[in-house]
């Protein structure tokens, strides 16, 4: 019984494959969020669902057929796409879904110490980059991806690494001492270490991963060498812009907040810009 995507010796085909473990995992996240992740305010709940659900859908798409299957045992490029979806794209959406609850708890003084430690930029830098480096090491990939448990470990590590990356930048104000410009700087620094695995993948003379080099070919034109180069490009060309979007969003929020504060500081115009 196959319950999680991992490498097999089966030839690739577009025939659908079921992964019940993925469905159970996604349902657990959904139930956990519904039970423990929502704020008490009804309007804020809608907003929370609006952020969380797209993040959860990305996690599901990354883990299930066909992306999960291709990344699990056939193509390094899809493995890289899974990394981008699980570690870079889904976590900020899920964390923004949790933000209303966190804001509510912070105002009530009920934020735990672990959430504060996780919001420290050093935690994000160390945890995320350690996970990125270790989970891209050829012997680790070749060893873990051939078993369902090993593949699950890599997927969970990426989600954890993504949450660690984004939490210091998205945590409610007060959980860490980072101003908006520092949060932007923190995110920029987070784009730097992934240059190393991406460069190794793109410029290696020969395939680094035994698993993908010798896997049954999914697409004839995608040789192991092209596949690996594509993997490195996806990591940087698709992955980095996601972080830049985060930086841009923080910038515009910060700029709007500054503008509002300036307007509020003008006497006679409380909280509203002057009409022209």
């Amino acid at each position: 019984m196959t319950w999680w995507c991992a490498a097999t010796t089966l030839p690739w085909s577009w025939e659908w494959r079921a992964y019940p473990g993925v469905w159970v995992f996604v349902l657990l996240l959904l139930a956990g969020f519904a039970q423990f992740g929502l704020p008490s305010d009804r309007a804020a709940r809608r907003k929370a669902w609006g952020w969380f659900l797209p993040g959860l859908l990305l996690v599901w798409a990354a883990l299930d057929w066909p992306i999960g299957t291709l990344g699990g045992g056939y193509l390094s490029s899809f493995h890289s796409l899974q990394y981008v979806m699980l570690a870079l794209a889904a976590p900020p959406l899920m964390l923004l879904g949790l933000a209303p609850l966190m804001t509510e708890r912070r105002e009530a003084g009920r934020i735990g110490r672990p959430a504060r430690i996780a919001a420290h930029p050093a935690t994000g830098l160390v945890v995320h980059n350690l996970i990125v480096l270790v989970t891209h090491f050829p012997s680790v990939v070749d060893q873990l991806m051939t078993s369902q448990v090993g593949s699950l470990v890599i997927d969970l590590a990426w989600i954890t690494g993504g949450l660690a990356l984004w939490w210091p930048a998205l945590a409610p104000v007060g959980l860490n001492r980072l101003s908006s410009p520092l949060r932007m700087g923190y995110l920029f620094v987070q784009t730097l270490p992934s240059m190393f695995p991406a460069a190794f993948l793109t410029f290696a003379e020969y395939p680094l991963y035994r698993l993908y080099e010798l896997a049954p070919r999914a697409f004839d034109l995608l040789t192991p060498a092209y596949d690996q180069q594509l993997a490195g490009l996806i990591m940087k060309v698709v992955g980095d812009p996601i972080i830049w979007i985060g930086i841009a969003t923080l910038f515009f929020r910060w700029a709007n907040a500054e503008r509002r504060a300036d307007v509020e500081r003008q006497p006679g115009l409380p909280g509203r810009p002057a009409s022209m």
Partner: protein
Amino acid sequence: MTDRRGALASLILLVGCAGGSDPDPDALHGYRLPSATPRPEFALTTVAGDGFDFAEATKGRLTLLFFGYTNCPDVCPATMANLGAVLGKLTGEERRRIDVVFVTTDPDRDRPEVLGPWLARFDRDFVGLVGSIDEVIAAQRASGIEAAVKDGEGEGYTVSHAAQVIVVSPDDSVHLHYPFGTRQAEWASDVPRLLRSFGGSAR
């Protein structure tokens, strides 16, 4: 860890070669046969329709001989892709000293017009050979491997076949087989050493 040991072994061997001695075949990534066998003798037809006497056509050259089929889902395309990638990085002089010969084990489906373009995807100089099923079986036996067996019925059948690459040295002997799973980096390490070790003529 195996790769690291292999790389270390390669380094030690290369240092040894720089000193002028031949590489130790036992340290190559292929497995050495208990005793060398003579260059296989069989005759088939190229995808261009010309007769091909294997022993005569490849005499005195480093020849990588493989038996497979174009509908193979895993071993054959991976092996040909790896060989094509590695040989494509050799110098022109080195490349001219090596032949890669692919014999189809599925002559019913691998007509010359199918096999030729399929092989050319990996390297335009790979030699594709076809023949009747009896000729192909005889060629496999002459090469010292089990004859391939058809699995299943209808159009979607597969063929169980030997997965190793047979290395025929320029001394017209087979000393080594390379199993499926030999990586590009391993071929890249071994091919120049096989050429240095056994010499061979350039076309």
